[in-house]
């Protein structure tokens, strides 16, 4: 079912510490994410920059913060348009593009997300996620076996394209 519902905006303030920690705890040792001296003097960058995993983590957090702990992410795709440095306020602007109900307690949402700094889009993401939009909480999407789950993702992806 096609829709275009604007979702609430959320914010995240970057810092040297959270960009470094995001890189180190995702076992990404590239110096452009954790070594300011290297990033500025050898990487020709304004500062260290956020790595893919941290950005993806924030995209997933945006969705699970909205729909709760039973939310199961199926697919995330994103493009990085500008590097994300410390001391920036990221704004997450999401909208639901379509909703597909596969059972009483499971719907798949297609969400488009723009991540902005001062009104400039620095990254765009598309997310396919399973959510339970009912009051009943008996069957968490996490209990679906991987084969069935993959078939749902394939089906939603095919419809989308």
């Amino acid at each position, binding site marked *: 079912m096609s829709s275009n519902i604007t979702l609430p905006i959320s914010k995240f303030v970057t810092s040297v510490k959270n960009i470094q920690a995001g890189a180190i705890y995702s076992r990404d040792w590239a110096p452009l994410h954790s070594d300011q001296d290297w990033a500025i003097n050898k990487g020709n960058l304004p500062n260290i920059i956020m790595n893919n995993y941290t950005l993806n983590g924030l995209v997933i957090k945006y969705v699970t913060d909205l729909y709760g702990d039973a939310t199961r992410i*199926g697919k995330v795709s994103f493009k990085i348009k500008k590097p994300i440095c410390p001391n920036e306020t990221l704004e997450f602007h999401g909208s639901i593009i379509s909703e597909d109900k596969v059972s009483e307690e499971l719907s798949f949402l297609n969400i488009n997300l723009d991540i902005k700094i001062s009104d400039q889009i620095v990254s765009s993401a598309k997310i396919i996620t399973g959510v339970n939009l009912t009051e009943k909480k008996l069957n*968490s999407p996490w209990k679906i076996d991987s084969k069935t789950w993959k078939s749902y993702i394939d089906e939603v992806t095919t419809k989308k394209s």
Partner: protein
Amino acid sequence: MQAELPKEITKLIGKISFEDSSPILVQKGLWQNFCSAIEDSNPIYWNESEAIKHANELIAHPALLPSWTHDFEWHPNRKKVLPMQLHFHLKEVLNLPLGIVTEVEIEYYEPIKNGDEISSNQKLLSISEPVTTKLGNGRYWVIEVTYFNQREIIVGKQNMHFLGYKK
């Protein structure tokens, strides 16, 4: 233009060319530190009594899936294995010393849990004709990475789009 590609590269298209084994078991301490960095309070990563309602136990943050195959920065007995070896191989063979990720697509099939062992393989899906970009001259390529757990179940798949270039 595709014919200009070295045979060494064309023969890689569509075939698994590199494999990574798990250098470290999935650990909740690592994923909880990551969640702390991004201020993600979802109880399925933190609280066993809440997580049990969904998946019988805590679940690792999905964004970390590729990171479980990254080698240690330093190891006492061996040299570090670079992540995305296929990407570095392409850069070397094509004499394109610089590379950036332009797009990432990742699908999650199976929840990752404490103690899992994740391995992966890499396949070159496509490589473009030569391009001229603001950064320099090079080529785009797409590498598919498939991730497995210790039971050989596919837990996720990632397509990484790269630009390899030189100034």
